């Protein structure tokens, strides 16, 4: 690797960490502002709803307002769930993966089997962030498109690298077609797609392999330098 490549890679690593810090700030703002306000407003409206039990029309309007606020809260919940960075600096890689799997199960009711060797250890921050975001995307993709009842996650050390595999036995797809259609597509609903996964991997100098075919399930494997 020549000096310019090394500089680019170092800059990429800084950029990844910076974007996580930005996300954390946005999530905190949502948390400290709208979440508290809407939750408090809903509490008050619930009191009002009871007080208005004798006035059906007024009660109906209050209920309607509550439904709207609950919907807004639900959207914030999804946003925060997708973007809040876990304790990257405090938690080891295995804990972060486990936390994400549990979060995914909570949100989707879809089972996630995972295999984490007890001696997995930790890795450099940019790799940890990339593994987390790629796994998040892989699980979300599998949930939205595969139709599989369960997904499988394996993380292991391969020499100086960390290897992550997300797989399912769902309906599968044609990778070339999907990758081509994502070429010019931006972020959809907070998801950065397969293209985004590839970008993250190449920023860190890792490898990306996707095996899928219609009716044959999907298996995504990335390896990233541990340090």
């Amino acid at each position, binding site marked *: 690797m020549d000096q310019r490549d090394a500089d680019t890679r170092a800059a990429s690593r800084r950029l990844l960490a910076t974007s996580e810090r930005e996300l954390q700030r946005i999530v905190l703002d949502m*948390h400290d502002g709208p*979440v*508290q*306000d809407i*939750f*408090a*407003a*809903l*509490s*008050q409206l*619930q*009191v009002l709803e*009871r007080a208005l039990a004798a006035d059906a029309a007024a009660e109906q309007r209050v209920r309607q307002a*509550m439904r709207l606020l*609950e919907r807004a*809260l*639900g959207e*914030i*919940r999804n946003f*925060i*769930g997708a973007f*809040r960075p*876990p*304790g990257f600096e405090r*938690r080891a890689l*295995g*804990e*972060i993966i*486990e*936390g*994400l*799997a*549990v*979060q*995914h*199960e*909570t*949100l989707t009711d879809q089972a996630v089997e*995972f295999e984490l060797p*007890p001696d997995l250890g930790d890795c450099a921050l940019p790799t940890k962030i990339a593994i987390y975001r790629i796994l998040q995307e892989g699980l979300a993709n599998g949930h939205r498109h595969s139709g599989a009842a369960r997904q499988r996650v394996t993380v292991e050390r391969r020499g100086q690298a960390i290897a992550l595999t997300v797989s399912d036995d769902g309906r599968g797809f044609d990778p070339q077609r999907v990758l081509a259609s994502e070429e010019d597509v931006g972020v959809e609903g907070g998801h950065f797609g397969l293209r985004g996964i590839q970008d993250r991997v190449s920023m860190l100098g890792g490898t990306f392999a996707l095996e899928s075919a219609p009716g044959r399930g999907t298996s995504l494997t990335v390896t990233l330098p541990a340090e």
Partner: protein
Amino acid sequence: MIHVLLADDHAIVLEGLRALLDGESDITVAAWTTDGTEVVKLVEQHKPDVVVLDLELTSIKGTEVIAALRDRTAPPKVLVLTAYNDGESLRSALDAGADGLALKTESPQQTLTAIRQVHAGQLVFPQAARRWIDGRAGAGAPGELTPREREVWALVANGLTNPQIAERLGLSDNTVKFHVQHLFSKLGVKNRTEAALKYAHGR
């Protein structure tokens, strides 16, 4: 009657919850505070059945407050109230020893229900977090134990009883009981003998 103490940095949330809880015939708000460092003192004064605690306090870590409450001889039930339903929050609340978790991004009605559930002795966590409670994922993987649980495990393996462990570590019997329960579920063992065997077999 369920006596509740509310602790949340946000005064508007406290005001809303108080209004809501006051309308319930089986619940009474014994005290409330926006200062997390006051919680332990207020619990001593009011002896509530349930403490509803924001996990994201600014003055002190919510998990530290829970740990302090757990060390009391008759700890109240603790319901964590948080905006975050991610693995991180669940794990923190469980590790600290909370009895349940309610979300600020869901209807306050859910918080009401959760208060009654933890008061009735239920653990109120999403189904997916059961793997941490049952110890399925952590079964046989002691890497998941907290430092305190490791200490307790060593003492259990040496044949100490809960009161003896409590004395040795300067904790309450209840806290030790709690750690032992968590330890057993994480190790996937049913009793002290199995825990000791596992300890003897290379941890």
